[in-house]
């Protein structure tokens, strides 16, 4: 295709020879980044965490096939304080990912693009409130 404007770096100007890319590890480099990038990072971290939990969940469920004693042993571990704290973290990650998903869906439909920061703050605010309520139930602060 003939260039529309004939723009060019100019004859004799060398083309670059180093790719000079941050790569996927650059996804998590939040230095000098802004709110939208934090949403991007939280979505990735929570997504990876939930995928890891899926496999852990399957391992846990497999205890059912090993009989009542194995399952009872798991339940004793499941109600120990470290595991309950893990449950709170899991709930927080789940809520962050789910509410971020609402943001992604709305923006994917071309909606509220100019208000994406306010949208993320509002959604994360709701996620934090629900996570706090869930944490208080999980940790037995409220019954």
């Amino acid at each position, binding site marked *: 295709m003939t260039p529309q404007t004939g*723009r060019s770096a100019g004859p004799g100007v060398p083309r670059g020879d180093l790719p000079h890319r941050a790569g996927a590890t650059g996804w998590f480099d939040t230095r000098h980044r802004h709110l939208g990038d934090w949403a991007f990072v939280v979505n990735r971290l929570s997504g990876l965490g939930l995928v890891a939990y899926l496999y852990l969940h399957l391992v846990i469920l497999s205890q059912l096939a090993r009989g009542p004693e194995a399952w009872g042993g798991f339940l004793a571990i499941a109600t120990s304080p470290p595991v309950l704290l893990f449950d709170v973290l899991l709930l927080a990650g789940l809520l962050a990912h789910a509410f971020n998903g609402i943001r992604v869906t709305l923006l994917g439909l071309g909606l509220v693009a100019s208000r994406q920061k306010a949208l993320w703050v509002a959604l994360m605010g709701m996620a934090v409130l629900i996570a706090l309520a869930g944490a208080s139930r999980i940790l037995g602060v409220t019954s």
Partner: protein
Amino acid sequence: MATLLQTPRPGADADPAAPARTLRVRRHRRGDSAEGWDRYTAPVGPRTTVLDALTWVRAHLDASLNLRHSCLHASCGTCGMRVNGRDVLACVTRLEDLPPGEVSVEPLRNQPLVSDLVVDIESLYESLDGVRLPLVRTSEGAPGSTPAEGVGHLTRFEDCVECGLCVSACPIVASDPEYAGPAVLGAAWRLVAEPRDRDPEPAYALVDGEQGAWRCHLAFECNEVCPTDALPAEEIARLRGILLRHRVVRWLQRHARPEEVQP
């Protein structure tokens, strides 16, 4: 590469007693296997920009320092670089606005490096030419401006100055060189929103694919660094809305008249 600490030569356009700032500049020469940093101290005044300091360094300390610039007022988009880790146009980035201490200066990311602070932006130009966005926006005038006496009207140009800062800031371009990127997708949105006698279908074909608007993961960093408020991330989001409606309409058309989709 050796790291050098250089100071301005007395009498070379600069008062030795004048305030000075030290720039820590990323260096890479063609053929070098590694990159390194050089330090230069340049005299500064209240309005000295990073580009002023770099051109002073080039004129007085190190003529081998490669950089690119043209207009000096954020219109040409050629002096994009990373200053203290932020993607900026060096010609409008004043040193007095930066925190005290050394100022780091690096080339833009995600575009092939030619030398020092110069990246190869040719592929961006080629991609933008593929969209064929007209340069003049006809749907609106220049907002808030009154033509000077004797001037009939003001021409409203498109916002994007094709500087490549958005490409440098995008985390997806960083990991996927095939992604069309924010500048190209933003241009495609403009063509779809205001075709100006151009056929927008080629733009649809370019952006409605795996490496088009759907590859964007909404980090919005392109918006944050855009020096002209072209706001490509918002444009990509709106483009997705249009593409979605386009797909739904096409699907309905196919299923309303199935005989037309027979091979």
